[in-house]
């Protein structure tokens, strides 16, 4: 009596059995039938469709309103948020970030020397595709690359000093339209596609994709809180979350979302998160930077 039934059942559910494998393939093929074939990546067309999707669902919202995330959906929450923004809790982070940013490295260089325009007013251009390495570089990763180039240790990409620095840099881009560029380079397009696939793929034991919450269920309540639409969601990062009690980066939020659906998060500097940030931020192109932000 060694759980024979269970094992058979298990095989069926796992899709390990050969017959089942065929069934899986058929299901997959069937699912793919209705769509255009996995065609060439067309970020511009995706962007249009993405923004149109939300504008059809929430006709009263203007594009720029999406940077206010969940606060478009509840007057009660919005009023509290506005009161908190009167003296925003991320002020300390911006202040500390500016001090760190202005501090010279031991070799005499500084963060400003690593960025175009001395790092001021450029946050809207990130993530960027680096043609040398063929990788996507988020603003946080760029800060770390700057540090290591000058003999300093890389910082945590999720919170603390790096989040403060990025918060300060982002504050100097306030209101500037997000301007993520996807060059006509196979590697850049592949990174974009990988980010897109990550965003829409269900994962974790709860079988949620990023899109399940932030596209399909956007504007709906999940345990008392409104889900922010994916459109505009990156604009407020880094963000001070009352729940955290400090400022965290976009990648910190990725990690949190992954854990929430019972999925082991990727590494903060992984290709998965770089590509996800690339795709997701690109989807908000044209919306104003509103970071650092404050959320519950």
């Amino acid at each position: 009596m060694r759980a024979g039934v269970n094992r058979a059942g298990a095989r069926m559910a796992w899709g390990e059995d050969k017959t089942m494998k065929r069934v899986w393939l058929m299901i997959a093929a069937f699912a793919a039938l209705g769509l255009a074939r996995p065609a060439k990546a067309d970020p511009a067309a995706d962007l249009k469709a993405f923004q149109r999707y939300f504008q059809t669902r929430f006709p009263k919202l203007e594009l720029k309103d999406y940077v206010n995330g969940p606060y478009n959906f509840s007057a009660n929450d919005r009023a509290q948020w506005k009161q908190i923004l009167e003296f925003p809790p991320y002020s300390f982070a911006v202040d500390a970030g500016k001090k760190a940013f202005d501090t010279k490295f031991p070799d005499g260089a500084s963060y400003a020397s690593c960025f175009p325009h001395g790092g001021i007013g450029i946050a809207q251009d990130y993530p960027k595709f680096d043609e040398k390495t063929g990788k996507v570089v988020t603003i946080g990763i760029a800060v770390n690359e700057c540090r290591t180039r000058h003999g300093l240790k890389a910082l945590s990409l999720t919170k603390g000093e790096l989040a403060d620095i990025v918060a300060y840099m982002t504050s100097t881009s306030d209101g500037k339209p997000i301007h993520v560029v996807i060059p006509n380079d196979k590697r850049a397009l592949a990174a974009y596609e990988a980010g897109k696939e990550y965003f829409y793929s269900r994962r974790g034991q709860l079988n949620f994709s990023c899109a399940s919450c932030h596209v399909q269920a956007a504007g709906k309540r999940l345990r008392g809180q409104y889900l922010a639409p994916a459109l505009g969601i990156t604009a407020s990062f880094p963000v001070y979350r009352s729940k955290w009690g400090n400022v965290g980066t976009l990648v910190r939020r990725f990690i949190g979302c992954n854990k929430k659906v019972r999925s082991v998060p990727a590494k903060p500097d992984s290709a998965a998160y770089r590509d996800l940030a690339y795709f997701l931020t690109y989807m908000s192109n044209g919306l104003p930077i509103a970071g650092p932000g404050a959320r519950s």
Partner: protein
Amino acid sequence: MMTEPETTGPARRTVLLGAAGAAAALALPRSGRAAAVAAPKASLWPEAAFKATTPDPALKALWGSSSLTPTTQVKMDAPDIAENGAVVPISVDANEPKITGVALLARHNPYSLACAYEIPEGTSPAISSRLKLAKTTEVIAVVKSGGKLYSTSKRVKVTLGGCG
């Protein structure tokens, strides 16, 4: 959904500038600045009032009375539902003459008294701050004027924050 969506851009920007401007005057403790400001005396803190678990003994310990006169002259702005119980913005204002004290109490917090203020002459009783509410509770604003206590209260619902 909100009928009048608006962005926060400009207002937010002002705030940031304000904070950054003030940052110039940012000071570290005991930094020996020329205009040194003396630290308050810890002994002033009304410990018994803050250790009381219900409003009545808290007010008795604080101001010697728990007899409240509800009035519309005391105004409190608090949300119907707290977005996050850890940070609930609450403002008080009052129209009574000669106000010398303002206090906020949350009936169902572990300790009811949240904060109390001494209002010297010339200072307005209008005070905004952010409080923690452990669960759904009546929040009571009390104002001390001419030896009497005036109050208003409001129930604030606290739900569990969900998304993680």
